[in-house]
């Protein structure tokens, strides 16, 4: 009798385990914590400490919260819901509780692409945290929102392949970079080259061309990749985003903009000329100064983006 029971359990347990492994990547997250776990990078920190610490200082590490000092991205998500979705007749949102994944994707498409792997329950949890942050200044909500971000596994796995008919879907246990071989992580056991790791398109996929027409109600935020293509490259520029932001700046994974002195220094040639003289205008003689300020943009796109 006892033996029979054990066999019985064994039989159902085995197919379940296989099913869980095959379907594991597809099963959607039901809570913020589950979504964070699906893209867990705590192991990376152990072996790639320097890169991890660089990344932690970048805006990618708080991509739905925004700059540490302002939390502007979360605040703008709030405005989007309150003064966008809730005010538009045909959005299907009358109150914050009506917000679903489809209402957040027009922002999350770039700010949190892995939100596609979550259920509406996660959309609701995010909205509750955004309201708690904006309405009550809730510190815990600020912390929770910063757990959701563009981390190692977004650039080195999920979003490392763009042309899926050419290159295939990104594989679950592979770290995409420039090398091929074994990788000592317990989950991500192999390394494969991504054909775009050193190309502008890797960054361009989120850094915007113009209105995002794939949505029922298009959004437009960053349009910087558009100006890279049609203004920088068009005028003969040939550097990639990675060359300027990761190498020339010396900042590596701490990809930065105008906030950092390194980038501010790289941004412009700035030159001021001034002369003073008497200007004769009919009967009047007017002492005046002329100040000429010359600014040359040395970045790979327009300044500012917006």
């Amino acid at each position: 009798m006892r033996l029979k029971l054990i066999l019985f359990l064994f039989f159902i347990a085995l197919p379940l385990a296989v099913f869980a492994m095959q379907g594991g990547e597809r099963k959607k997250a039901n809570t913020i914590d589950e979504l964070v776990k699906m893209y867990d990078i705590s192991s990376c920190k152990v072996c790639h400490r320097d890169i991890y610490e660089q990344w932690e200082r970048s805006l990618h590490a708080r991509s739905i919260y925004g700059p540490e000092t302002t939390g502007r991205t979360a605040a703008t998500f709030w405005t989007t819901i309150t003064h966008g979705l809730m005010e538009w007749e045909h959005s299907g949102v009358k109150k914050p509780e009506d917000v679903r994944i489809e209402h957040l994707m027009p922002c999350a498409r770039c700010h949190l692409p892995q939100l596609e792997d979550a259920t509406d329950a996660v959309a609701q949890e995010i909205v509750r945290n955004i309201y708690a942050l904006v309405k009550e200044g809730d510190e815990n909500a600020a912390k929770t929102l910063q757990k959701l971000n563009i981390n190692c596994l977004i650039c080195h796995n999920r979003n490392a392949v763009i042309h899926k008919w050419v290159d295939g879907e990104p594989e679950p246990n592979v770290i995409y970079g420039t090398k091929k071989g074994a990788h000592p992580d317990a989950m991500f056991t192999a390394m494969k080259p991504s054909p775009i790791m050193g190309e502008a398109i890797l960054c361009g996929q989120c850094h915007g061309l113009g209105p995002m027409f794939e949505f029922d109600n298009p959004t437009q935020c960053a349009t910087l990749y558009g100006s890279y293509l049609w203004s920088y490259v068009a005028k003969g520029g040939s550097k990639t985003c990675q060359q300027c932001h990761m190498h020339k700046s010396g900042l590596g994974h701490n990809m930065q903009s105008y906030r950092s002195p390194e980038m501010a220094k790289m941004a412009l040639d700035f030159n001021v000329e001034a002369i003073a003289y008497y200007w004769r205008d009919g009967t009047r003689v007017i002492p005046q100064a002329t100040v000429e300020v010359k600014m040359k943009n040395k970045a790979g796109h327009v300044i500012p983006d917006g």
Partner: protein
Amino acid sequence: MPIPQQFGRGDRMGRGPYEKSGLIRETSLHPHETRTERFDIIFPPNIFDMNVEVELWYMPYGTKEVDGFLWNRADKTLSVSKTGK
């Protein structure tokens, strides 16, 4: 700053990414482009020396004090003659 159009229609600028769609006017500084801004300043009566401070600020949103970034500055001292024809 680029001036994005609200919902791709009309003459109103949109501010939030949820309402921007297009451009009404483009005033940003383009790559490789040199922009010259010229300022003519008249000396106040009986003043012959002037100190001009030029500051370039990047302001993502709001005011200089709240969220502004000083990129460059230059100081110039200018004088005009006190006598002459």
